[in-house]
């Protein structure tokens, strides 16, 4: 066999081993990610219990929200860069406009990175926001701005986003829930 052929075979075997290893990691990761996200297994619970919220727009600095959650990593790889994002919007009749237009303002926006959950471990924590830590005071309507003839006066709704990287950071998955009804308040 010519020496150039021998060199070729060495490179080819390296490529084959590398590709097989990569395919193995991909398949194992995909299968493992499915076991984590399987809705029957309740490995990702957001929220994991009642959401406690103080949405009193008359006292903005004391406005707060806490969302308990737990994430169980039953897969074979670590769950990296776990990020939880939470937004709250409020819908109200805007009395400062000529026709009391229905207005939707985002009053809370916060993203927290929870780092890594090693395989077999559980992350149990509470996502929380208080006052200026998450709440956007500029977007929170003043009482005088709210059309009080409507029922309900204020409708609060939330968006959740959970994202994480998996399988040696080869996969990224994101779960997003929108327009989760949080509260309806009559002032």
């Amino acid at each position, binding site marked *: 066999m010519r020496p150039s*052929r021998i060199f070729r075979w060495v490179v080819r075997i390296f*490529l084959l081993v*590398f590709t097989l290893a990569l395919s193995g990691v991909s398949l194992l990761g995909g299968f493992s990610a499915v076991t984590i996200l399987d809705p029957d297994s309740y490995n990702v619970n957001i929220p994991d219990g009642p959401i406690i919220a103080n949405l009193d727009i008359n006292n903005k600095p004391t406005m707060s929200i806490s969302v308990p959650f737990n994430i169980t990593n039953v897969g074979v790889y670590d769950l990296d860069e776990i990020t939880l994002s939470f937004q709250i919007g409020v819908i109200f009749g805007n009395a400062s406009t000529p026709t009391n237009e229905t207005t939707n303002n985002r009053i809370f926006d916060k993203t927290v990175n929870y780092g890594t959950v090693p395989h077999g471990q559980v992350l149990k924590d509470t996502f929380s926001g208080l006052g200026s830590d998450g709440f956007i005071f500029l977007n929170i309507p003043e009482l005088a701005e709210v059309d009080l003839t409507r029922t309900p006066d204020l409708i609060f709704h939330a968006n959740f986003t959970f994202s994480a990287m998996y399988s040696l950071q*080869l*996969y*990224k*998955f*994101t779960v997003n829930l929108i327009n989760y009804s949080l509260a309806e308040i009559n002032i």
Partner: protein
Amino acid sequence: MGWFPNILKGIIYMGVYITTTMVVPFLTFTWVKEIQVLGVAIVLEQFQYDRIIFWITAFGLLISASAFFNYSSPKQSIRKASFALIQILLNCLYIWSYKFSGATEVKFEIVFEVTNVGFIAIDVQNMVMLYMGVYFLTILLKGYDLIDFILNRDKIRQKRYKITEEGVDAS
């Protein structure tokens, strides 16, 4: 090897590539297009599905055709090396098409009754980039083959004809 076994080998490999680059991805994306989890429909957006299928079919056809010419060519021939290089370049474009068709970041809408209540997105862009790295090494290898076959053309031909003559003598 005579012309008939070479053609047969080309047809077999073309079939293999049609299956792996077109049929399997088509069936997979069609299967995940509309699945239900606990009664909640998880829907792959139609325009995204159409775009993915279009690019898979376009590059799948080209790869399958070049696979036929690659595998039906005589061993260590310049023709084989040229088609192998073309095939690997098309493979790169095929893998890359997963990225620009949106297949590396597939977004499934979660529909409860008739209301869209969110989405699940799976992003495998990093994995595709890693596979592109493997393909880059393969391109180097195929380029090396082509140069090797051109430089050692006489040696390869002598060896090939010697084997053929010996084969004829033996028979």
